């Protein structure tokens, strides 16, 4: 047996977020795109809606959402902000606050999570380095115990939200090597406030997602207290995947939201646009791709909520780590590509306007493109599914 | 039928004060309903112990008893009759000519009898005139019982009200008390198989509906101003003037008027009565451009309206706001300047005969309802238009 509907609370929340976004977010996207910033009052307004770090325990200011509910918010934000900036802010923070909340120390959580839930700080993730992305085992950033403190050295790049942290405060859930001989088995996860002395931030110019920053930082002899260690020392690699999986599933929700919104824009346009004496929606050359994209995104959407549901089941001990990894990877493997293909056709239907900077769909296209990489590339997703199907002995690089 | 249960009556005198026709008197410590009761219901409403009950036999009534089209007039104090009254009289004439009945006008106010002749010139065969200090400004508590009573007594076939703030406050009160249907905001009225076919917009103007009331009389409707045509006034027309003795004691009213905050009139013509409206929105507000619109409205003989933002930004009074939360207008010409044209605004102006939109944003939704659109800066276009009008009008 299978129950296949959202709860009434979830439907109500979706409606409420949709109404909130229609009033507070969508009308400001253009301004955000131009100013390359999410206005602070908008983040405050999200906090008032209790949308920031929503899965976190209420003790630290969260709402105790389950993963499915967090996904609903992601989908609605994906519909509402064609630059995906607010969705990224939301999902990165939600996912890593989720892990932080689950494995962090009470002292560290009390200090760093409530400001984030109130909209006064950002919580991000820093694993990627100039030399490595997918292949975490070859990371160079290190964390070394020194008395009752730890010292961090190294460099991270392509990190979302560096400027936001500089602006509001907060920091990044970070992964570094502690046992240098042990590869992934010697990594430690910790919370790194970016305001600490010894951290030097630089910003990058990205192809899209105008209103949220991406950048890197050098870390030289930065001291952090022991309480900032998340989970057990040298066990960071195992819990980092919980955050990744959470983020990947919500990314898929954002992609579904963005693609569906774009298809709706497209439907409106092709009914109105005439060529050769009739609405272009009358041509099968337009209808068929519409039908295909709609079908594909609908299937993706349903499977995405299944993946989120698996994450919830895992919390109750009803699904295994590996099942979750595989299901989420299947979703993340295609979400960005399919969304891009749908949006690409919507751009195409709009002719030259589709290529114009004023067309929201091209901005959505550029934004969604980032999700083929961020929080794990689509290729790596395939390696995960293959690993689950074939067994560890067939992992290519062993 | 009205009954007063003497055993319940506590002698509070409220009904005596409330009766607009002065037919309730005190006999000893009890109220007694005398002759001339119109079943208007004022006493029943006010009685604190529910001693008074009215039973109306509205089911299985003899529909043929009901005859005549009534128009409920609205005045601006004792200054003038609102335009829509004449429009409804014109419509009433058209309907009665088909029905073979007569048109009456209900004229309530203080010092309004002087308008009776104009009403007759505009099509009324008779005018019921009720005057009282308590009727000097519209209020449901004073107007509803008088009209309810007149309808009960004279049994018209059709009663028309203006779909103004006052009319929409009054008509449903009357309809509910007489157990009658009421059709709101009509833009079309005709006779079909002897019944009043009432056409009205619903869903914010996205659909139209034809409504009938086959089993109850009178058939009642509120009608949008500026839609029906008034007849050419005919000074030779004669009609009957019937004085309705009205005796209302306002001290019985439960609603007390504390303050009147009328917006300063920017023009002599009201926004909902104007033939030409030049309306401005955000774009005009932020640049102090309303002076330009005043000038254009001036040369065209129209008035200046505005969208909601203009009121929000404090540069125009609420009384000239067009839209769902303002006034619904249907002038011959509506010129929307720097108005993006939200659904809420469109609801209020979509039924204008001709719509011109001037906006520098080609994507503004206002262009979708406009008959003529100009993309550009109004600060250049409006002055050019003023010049053009003056040139052609020889002004």
């Amino acid at each position: 047996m299978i129950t296949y509907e959202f709860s009434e609370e979830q439907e109500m929340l979706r409606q409420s977020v949709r109404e909130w976004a229609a009033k507070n977010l969508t009308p400001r996207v253009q301004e955000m795109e131009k100013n390359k910033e999410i206005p602070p009052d908008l983040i405050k307004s999200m906090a008032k809606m209790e949308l920031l770090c929503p899965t976190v325990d209420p003790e630290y200011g969260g709402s105790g959402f389950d993963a499915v509910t967090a996904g609903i918010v992601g989908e609605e934000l994906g519909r509402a902000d064609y630059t995906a900036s607010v969705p990224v802010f939301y999902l990165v923070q939600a996912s890593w606050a989720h892990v932080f909340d689950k494995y962090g120390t009470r002292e560290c959580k009390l200090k760093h999570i409530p400001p984030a839930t109130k909209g006064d700080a950002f919580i991000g993730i820093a694993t990627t380095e100039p030399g490595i992305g997918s292949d975490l085992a070859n990371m160079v950033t290190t964390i070394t115990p020194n008395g009752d403190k730890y010292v961090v050295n190294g460099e991270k790049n392509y990190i979302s939200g560096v400027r936001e942290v500089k602006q509001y405060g907060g920091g990044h859930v970070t992964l570094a090597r502690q046992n240098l001989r042990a590869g992934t088995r010697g990594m430690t996860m910790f919370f790194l406030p970016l305001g600490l002395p010894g951290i030097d931030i630089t910003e990058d110019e990205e192809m899209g997602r105008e209103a949220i920053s991406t950048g890197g930082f050098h870390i030289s002899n930065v001291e952090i207290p022991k309480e900032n260690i998340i989970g057990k020392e040298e066990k960071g690699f195992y819990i980092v995947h919980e955050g990744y999986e959470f983020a990947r599933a919500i990314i898929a929700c954002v992609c579904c939201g963005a693609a569906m919104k774009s298809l709706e824009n497209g439907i409106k346009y092709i009914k109105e646009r005439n060529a050769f004496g009739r609405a272009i929606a009358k041509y099968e050359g337009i209808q068929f791709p519409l039908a295909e994209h709609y079908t594909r995104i609908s299937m993706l959407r349903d499977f995405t909520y299944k993946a989120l549901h698996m994450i919830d089941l895992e919390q109750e001990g009803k699904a295994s780590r590996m099942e979750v990894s595989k299901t989420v990877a299947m979703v993340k493997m295609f979400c960005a590509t399919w969304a891009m293909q749908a949006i690409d056709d919507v751009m195409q239907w709009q002719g030259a306007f589709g290529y114009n900077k004023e067309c929201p769909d091209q901005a959505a296209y550029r934004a969604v493109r980032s999700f083929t990489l961020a929080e794990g590339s689509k290729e790596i997703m395939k390696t995960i599914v293959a690993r689950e199907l074939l067994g560890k002995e067939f992992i290519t690089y062993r | 039928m009205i009954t007063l249960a003497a055993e319940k009556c506590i002698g509070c005198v409220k009904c005596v004060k409330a009766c607009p026709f002065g037919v309730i008197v005190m006999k000893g410590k009890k109220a007694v309903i005398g002759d001339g009761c119109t079943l208007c219901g004022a006493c029943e409403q006010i009685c604190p112990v529910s001693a008074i009950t009215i039973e109306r036999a509205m089911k299985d009534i003899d529909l043929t008893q009901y005859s005549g089209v009534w128009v409920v007039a609205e005045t601006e104090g004792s200054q003038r009759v609102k335009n829509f009254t004449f429009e409804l009289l014109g419509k009433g004439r058209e309907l009665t000519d088909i029905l073979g009945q007569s048109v009456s006008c209900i004229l309530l106010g203080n010092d309004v009898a002087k308008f009776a002749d104009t009403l007759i010139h505009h099509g009324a065969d008779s005018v019921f005139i009720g005057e009282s200090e308590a009727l000097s400004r519209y209020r449901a508590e004073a107007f509803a019982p008088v009209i309810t009573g007149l309808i009960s007594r004279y049994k018209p076939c059709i009663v028309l009200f203006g779909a103004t703030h006052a009319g929409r406050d009054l008509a449903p009160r009357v309809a509910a008390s007489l157990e009658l249907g009421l059709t709101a905001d009509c833009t079309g009225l005709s006779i079909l198989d002897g019944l009043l076919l009432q056409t009205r917009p619903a869903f914010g103007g996205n659909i139209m509906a034809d409504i009938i009331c086959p089993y109850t009389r009178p058939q009642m409707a509120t009608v949008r101003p500026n839609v029906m045509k008034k007849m050419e006034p005919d000074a030779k027309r004669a009609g009957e003037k019937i004085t309705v003795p009205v005796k209302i004691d306002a001290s019985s009213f439960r609603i007390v008027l504390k303050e009147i905050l009328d917006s300063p009139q920017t023009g002599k013509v009201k926004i909902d009565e104007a033939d030409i409206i030049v309306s401005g929105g955000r774009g005009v507000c932020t640049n102090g451009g309303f002076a330009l619109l005043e000038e254009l409205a001036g040369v065209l003989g129209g008035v200046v309206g505005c969208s909601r933002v203009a009121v929000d930004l404090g540069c125009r009074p609420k009384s000239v706001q067009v839209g769902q939360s303002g006034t619904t207008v249907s002038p011959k010409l509506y010129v929307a300047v720097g108005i993006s044209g939200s659904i809420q605004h469109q609801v209020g102006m979509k039924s204008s005969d001709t719509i011109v939109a001037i906006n520098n944003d080609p994507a503004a939704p206002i262009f979708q309802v406009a008959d003529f659109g100009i993309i550009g800066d109004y600060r250049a276009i409006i002055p050019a238009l003023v010049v053009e009008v003056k040139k052609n009008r020889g002004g």
Partner: protein
Amino acid sequence: MLIIACVKQVPDTSDVKVDSATGTLVREGVPAVMNPFDQFALEEGVRLRDAAGEGAEIVALSMGPPQARSALMKALALGADRAILLTDRAFAGADTWATSYTLARAVGALGKIDLIMCGLQAVDGDTAQTGPEMAQHLRLPQVTYAERVTLDGKTLTVKRQTDTGYEIVEVRMPALLTCTPPADFVPSTPPFSAIIKAKKKPYEEWGAEKINTDADKLGLKGSPTQVKRVFSPPKRGQGVMLEGNSAAAVAGELFQVLAKGGVL
């Protein structure tokens, strides 16, 4: 103090169309929302309840099909203390007379009430009649077009729109208000915790038997008005864009077309 807030579930107006083949309204797939005027009335009611302090209660009341539950759940999330949905086949097809009668009977069944808050009008039927008709059924004084309300003991002070501007009136409760949002009203969107709370508040569904009424006065049967036909409004002709080289040129063009059309 007991406040009743009347809320109607309505389709998102801009989307509604007439099926040209059957001549009926296409409601399928049209999202349903709480009538925006009612949201304002309700939020004002919640504010008044809070102002009245301890023991004050606000009940959201709606008549409609079972799906109208969602409008009431939203009302609960926005602060109503409990909700009642009047739902029964017998209520279907009601015009404003029958609707106001049914609502009034339900209010009657709730005992002594102090205040009824209605929206000025529903954005679908668009009549603005239900409130005043209900007031008449209940023999209550009505204040329509209310924009701002304050409470002092048992007396309400209301700023209401009139044909010529505004007036301030005072009314002693019990009374019925129909409300229209002022320009600066921003409707609330309930946060998650309010939604969770809403689910725990009392919610009831009442059928015709619950309100003790004359069956002949309900629904289609009790409605004096009949909708004979619905149709799409005549389409405006495709608009014409005027594109002159200069302001003077377009102005000239506009004057010409308006003069030709007899508008000027």
